[in-house]
C-alpha cells in the first residue's frame, strides 16, 4: 500500500509517497534525493545510514519511511552551516579520517550525536560510541583523533559563547 508521508528533513518540510514496507533509508535516497545517507548493509550492522530521528541516533535502514510522519530528520546533508563546515566535518578532513569516504556520513552523524551528549569523551568512550559504524579503510585511528580534536574545538567555542 502506498502512503503519503509528511516529514521534516534538515529543517525543510517534505512530502513523499512510498510503499508502506519501504525503509526510511530508501525513502531518503530514492524519494528525497538524500544520497549522502549510505547503505552498507541494510540490516543495522554498519551505521552508514545513520541519521537523527527526533533527536535520537538511528539506522535509517531499520526505520520505515511511514514512521517519519510528523518527525524531524537530520542527515549529513544538513550538517554544515551554509558553506561553513561543522567542526567535525572540518576535522575529518584535516585528520584524513576518511579514505574511501563511504562510512563518513554515518560517522559524522554518530559523532555529532556523541558530542551533543558527552562533549568531552575519553578515547574509550569515543570508540564504544562509534562501534556501530564500520570503517574498513582507516583502522579508526584517524577517525578517533578527528573526533577528539573536534570536541576540543567545539568546547573552546562553547566556552567563548
Amino acid at each position, binding site marked *: 500500500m502506498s502512503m503519503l508521508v509528511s516529514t521534516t528533513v534538515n529543517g525543510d518540510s517534505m512530502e513523499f509517497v512510498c*510503499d508502506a514496507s519501504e525503509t526510511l533509508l530508501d525513502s531518503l*535516497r530514492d524519494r528525497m534525493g*538524500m*544520497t*549522502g*545517507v*549510505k*547503505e*552498507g*548493509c*541494510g*540490516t543495522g*550492522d*554498519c551505521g*552508514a545510514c545513520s541519521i537523527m530521528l527526533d533527536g535520537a541516533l538511528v539506522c535509517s535502514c531499520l526505520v520505515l519511511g511511514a514512521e517519519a510522519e510528523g518527525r524531524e530528520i537530520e*542527515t*549529513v*546533508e544538513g*550538517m*554544515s552551516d551554509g558553506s561553513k*563546515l561543522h567542526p567535525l*566535518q572540518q576535522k*575529518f*578532513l*584535516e*585528520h*584524513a579520517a*576518511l*579514505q*574511501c*569516504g*563511504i*562510512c*563518513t*556520513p554515518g560517522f*559524522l552523524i554518530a559523532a555529532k550525536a556523541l558530542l551533543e551528549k558527552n562533549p568531552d569523551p575519553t*578515547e*574509550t568512550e*569515543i*570508540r*564504544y560510541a*562509534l*562501534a*556501530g*559504524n*564500520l*570503517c*574498513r*579503510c*582507516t*583502522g*579508526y*585511528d*584517524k*577517525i*578517533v*583523533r578527528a573526533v577528539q580534536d573536534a570536541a576540543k574545538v567545539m568546547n573552546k567555542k562553547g566556552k567563548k559563547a
Partner: protein
Amino acid sequence: MNDDPAYTGQTFKSVGTRPLRPDGVDKVTGRARYGADFTMPGQLAGLVLRSPHAHATIKKIDISKAEALPGVKAVVTSQDLPDVTGGDRELLPILENCMARKKAFYDGHAVAAVAAIDMPTAKAALKLIEVEYKVLKHVTDVDKAVEPKAPVLHKDCFTRGVDPKPEKPSNVAKVSTFGHGDVDAGFEQADVIIERNFRTEQTHQGYIEPHACVASISPDGSGDLWVCTQGHFVFRQQCAQLLGMDVSKLRVTSSEIGGGFGGKTHLWLEPVAMALSRKANRPVKLVMTREEVFRASGPTSATSIDMKIGVTNDGRIVAGDATLRYSSGPWAGSWAMLGAMTAFACYDMENVKTTGMEVLVNRPKTTAYRAPSAPMAAFAVESVLDELAKRIGMDAVEMRIKNAAKEGTQASYGPVYGPIGIGPSLDAAKNHPHMKAKLGKNQGRGMACGFWFNFGGQSCTNLNISMDGSVTLTVGTIDVGGARASLSLCVAEELGIPYEQVKTVIGDTGTLGYNEMTDGSRGTFASSMSAIMSARKAIDEMRHRAAKMWEISPDDVIWEDGHARAAGDTNLPPLSIADIAAAAEKSGGPIAGHTQLVADGAGVSFATHICDVEVDPETGSTRVVRYTVIQDAGKAVHPTYVEGQFQGGAAQGIGWALNEEYVYGEDGRLQNPGFLDYRIPVCSDLPMIDTQILEIPNPNHPYGIRGVGETSIVPPLAAIGNAVSNATGVRMTHVPMSPPRILDALDEASA
C-alpha cells in the same frame, strides 16, 4: 624534455606535505557520488537470482511466468550472455561466474536476473523464475578438495604445471614451484628444523560499499556504464569483449569507490546489468545486498600450508620448504602461486623451495585482497621463524636481521633485489620504544615481517593548463583513498606552483588511453610517474611559448619555480604559468601535456609490525592493546594518507587474525553472510595504530615513490600469532585465532 624516470634525489617543496584532499568536502557533506548514488532517466531496477546450492547441474530455467508479470521488462539467463570469447581461458570463467551456465558452482552463484519498473516488481518476478537443479556432491574445504575421493568440479581439469600430465581430472588446477639451491642439503646443515601445518580461513575484503552499477546499452551497439570499480578501463575491455561490443563504443565512468581492496578489480554484476539493459532497451541499475556481497563476491583463499624451515644454532636460515594449498573457488587462479612467491621473500636464503597448488572448491571465485595471498604465507613462515628463534635462544628480531634480504640478494621467487627496506624496517623495530615497553598480566608481544611486489604497468594521463594558469590533471586510475591529493602534489612539485592550483580528476574511458587498475599498490606509483612526465611535457611546451613571446630561442628559456626565465643577462621579466596561459591563443593554442607509458620498476615493499595482545585465559578472548607498523614508502608523497594505508591494512590483518572467517555448513551454504557474524573489527576492538614511515627511495621513480597500499596487511596474522604465543605459551596454527580455538589450544597444552 627529461623523460628519464630515474630517481634524482631532488629536494621537495610540495611532495611530503599534508594538504587537504580535493575530493574531501564532497565526501564530508554527502555530495560525493558512489556506485548506488547515480540514476539514469528511465532506469529500471535489477535483481539477481542466486543458487541456493553449493554444486548443482542446472537442468532447466523457466522464466516465462516472470516475463509475464506486468512491469517486468527483461529476464536474462546465461542464454542472453552467449560465449563470444572463443573459449578464452581467462575470460570465459569471468562470464561463467557472473552467470552460471550448465552448473551452479557455489551458494550464491547467479543463475538469472530481472529488470523491472521498480524493486517490489523485480522482487516478485524473481520468485516466479523456476529453476530445476540436480544437486551434486560438493566440497568447500581446501584439504578435502584434494583428496582422491573428493567430488571433482570440472571433468576437464587436469593439473597444469606437472609433468607428465595427470591421467585423471582433479581439483588441483595448477602447480607452480619457485626457489633455488638444494633444500635437502640445506636441511642437512640445520641444527633445528621445525615443520608444521598452518591453516587460514577464507576472509572477505569487507568494503562497506556493496557492488553497484547502472548500465545503458543502446540498440546501435554503444553503451554507457556507471560503476564502482578499481579499474574502469579494465572493466570496459572485459565487458565489451564479453558482450561482443566494440571496446571504444562502451564508455565506462567510475563512481567514487567505497572501498575495494582488490574486490572491485573483478566483474560481478556489470555484464548482467548490460545484458538486462540490452534486452529491456532501457538503463538498468543493479546493486548487491550485503548478503550478496558475502555470498557471491570476492573472498580470499582459504589455505593449508605445510611449512618446514631449518636454522643453525647461530640463527642462520639454511633451508626453507613449503607446500601451499590455496582455494581459488570454482575456477583456477594464481593465488597459490602468489603465496609461493612471497613466502620467503623477506630473507636471504641459499636453499629455498615453494610449491603452490591452486585448489578448486565450491565457494565463490577467489579475488584479490590487498597483497593477495601473501598474509597466509607470511603467517606460516613468520610463525615458524619465531618458534625457531625461541628454540635456539635467539631474539626474534635479531634472527630476522641476520637473515634479512638486502640489495643484491636473489629473491626466493627469482629476481635480484635493488635497494630494499626489510633490513631498515627491522633495525627500526629493534630500536622502537614499543619493543622496550612493559607488558601487563596475560599480555604478550609479537613481531613479524611482510613483503609485497608492487606493480606498475600501463598508464595514461592528460595535463591541461587553463587560461588562468590553474591546472587539471586527468588520470585513469581510480582513487581509493587520497591519490588525487598525492598526484596534485606531484604536479605542483614538478611545475613549481602551489598545490591548490592543481586539480586532479579521474577521467572516464572516453578521455584517456588504457590504464590498468588501481591494484598492486600501483595507483600513485604509476600515475604519478605519468603525471610527472605530463607536467614535464607541459613545461617544455611553455618554454617554447615563452620563447615565442620573447622572440628568443627555446634553448635560452629555463624553467624555475613555476616560471619561464630567459637565460643569461636579460631584462626580460620571468613569465608565470598564468602569463603564458593568458597568451596561449596567440602562441599556439591550449597548453597541455599528454603521457602514455608502461611504468616499470615498482620497487618492492617491506614492513615490520610489532604488536601486544592480552589474552583472557578463561575465555580465550584476545585484545590487541598496542600496535606499531614500520614500513618503507620509498617517498611518502602525502604522509597522512600513507599512514592511513598502514593503519587500514593493519586493522584488516588484525580482523583476519582474530575473528573474520567464512563459515560454511554441511550443506555447503554460507552461514554468516552479514556484518553481524562476519566480524570485521569495530572501533572499540582496536587501539591507536602507530606508524613509522621509512623512505628508501625507489631508484626507478623520479621521486623515489614505491607503492604503499598493500604490504601492511601481510605481517599482522603472524605478529598476532607470535604475540599470542608469547602471552600464553601456545603456538596457534589456525587463523582466525578465535576464542574457541585459543581455549582448545590452551587445553591441549595443559593436557
